């Protein structure tokens, strides 16, 4: 009887603490709409790039499906989602592309359009851009 009580007491405690530990800590990943949200953002971005004269040539040789998968995984990982980025590193991907500053910023504008289309609020957009911004030096003029 006592043991039962103890067990259930500890059980309750465990539940309680476990409950605390998983209290919804909203990640940026959640704010971006989780897996479907990020999927749509990347889908929109690919559409934007496909229509864009200024930067399309950088992507003309890419395999669209692989590009999408890698970008979804990257956005997921960088926004604290349940993913690990398994793609190549930024320097390797962009070496030889010689992306300049202007085109990089234009791509940021396209990403903003893509997020606008998915209804991501301005303040959430800024948080994703803030996490991607430090990668710029590994991307441009390579």
């Amino acid at each position: 009887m006592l043991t039962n009580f103890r067990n259930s007491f500890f059980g309750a405690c465990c539940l309680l603490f476990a409950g605390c530990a998983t209290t919804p800590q909203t990640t940026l990943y959640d704010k971006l709409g989780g897996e479907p949200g990020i999927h749509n953002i990347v889908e929109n971005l690919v559409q934007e790039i496909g229509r864009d004269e200024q930067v399309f040539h950088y992507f003309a040789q890419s395999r669209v499906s692989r590009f999408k998968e890698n970008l979804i995984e990257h956005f997921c990982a960088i926004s604290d989602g349940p993913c690990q980025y398994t793609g190549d590193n930024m320097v390797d991907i962009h070496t030889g592309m010689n992306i300049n500053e202007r085109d990089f910023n234009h791509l940021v504008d396209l990403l903003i359009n893509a997020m606008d289309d998915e209804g991501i609020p301005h303040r959430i957009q800024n948080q994703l851009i803030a996490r991607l911004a430090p990668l710029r030096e590994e991307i441009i003029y390579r």
Partner: protein
Amino acid sequence: MRHILLLLTLTFTSQLYAADGKLLATPGISQIEGAGGGGFVPWAQLAGYGSRDEIAANVFCSGANVDDYDLHVCGAQATFYDRVEFSVAKQKFHVDALNLNIKQHVLGVKARLYGDIVYSRFPQISLGIQHKKLDDPTVAYLLGADEDSGTDVYLAASKLHLGAIGGYNWLWNITARSTEANQTGLLGFGSAERGNQREIVLEASTAILFGRHLALGVEYRQKPDNLGLKEDDWSNVFVAWFPNKVISLTAAWLDLGEIAGAKNQKGAYFSVTGYF
């Protein structure tokens, strides 16, 4: 009228070519002495949307109307490869009490020494000079100024923090200026009585960007008081609208303190910059 002409010119020529390599709103606007900056303060950003591979040219006009004075400025900047900015500005300062205009020309150069306000880890740093010359120094000399021309040297640091304040982008700029100008040079330079008056003053701006197109901010500009006329520091509250990378419109409320014996000079300010 001048503003309308400027707008029309902009609308037509912008169709031809415009530097657009920076993110919207990040270059700021044009300050009263012609440099890229806020309204009063030259910022570390170079004027216009030219990136490292582009040349940018901009034109601007600004008008301020406080209790006993008006200031009208028009000018232009040319920026090369986001490395160096050249600027010219022509100022007309109307003194209501005397019903006369004081005119001053300002030539400026600014070089980016380090960084990018959005992407570099540390703030963008630029070094600039502004050479100023009065057309007619009569008023300046009457008030006791020593010279009719002078040169300011300034060092500016600026940073945009992405999503920093409640998710909004936050910009700040601090500028240290070595100057001997009285009321930015409109009342001459130095003091005939006290000789060389060069000193270092601090200027600062900060703004929050509410969305991609709208910035709300404040500025502060410390001023020397060479003439013993209780020259006050300047401050303003501004709202700037960037509908696209071709034009920006700014409105501000100014507090200029005491100017040559006239106390409490407050009023409105409007500015338009066109970017090519």
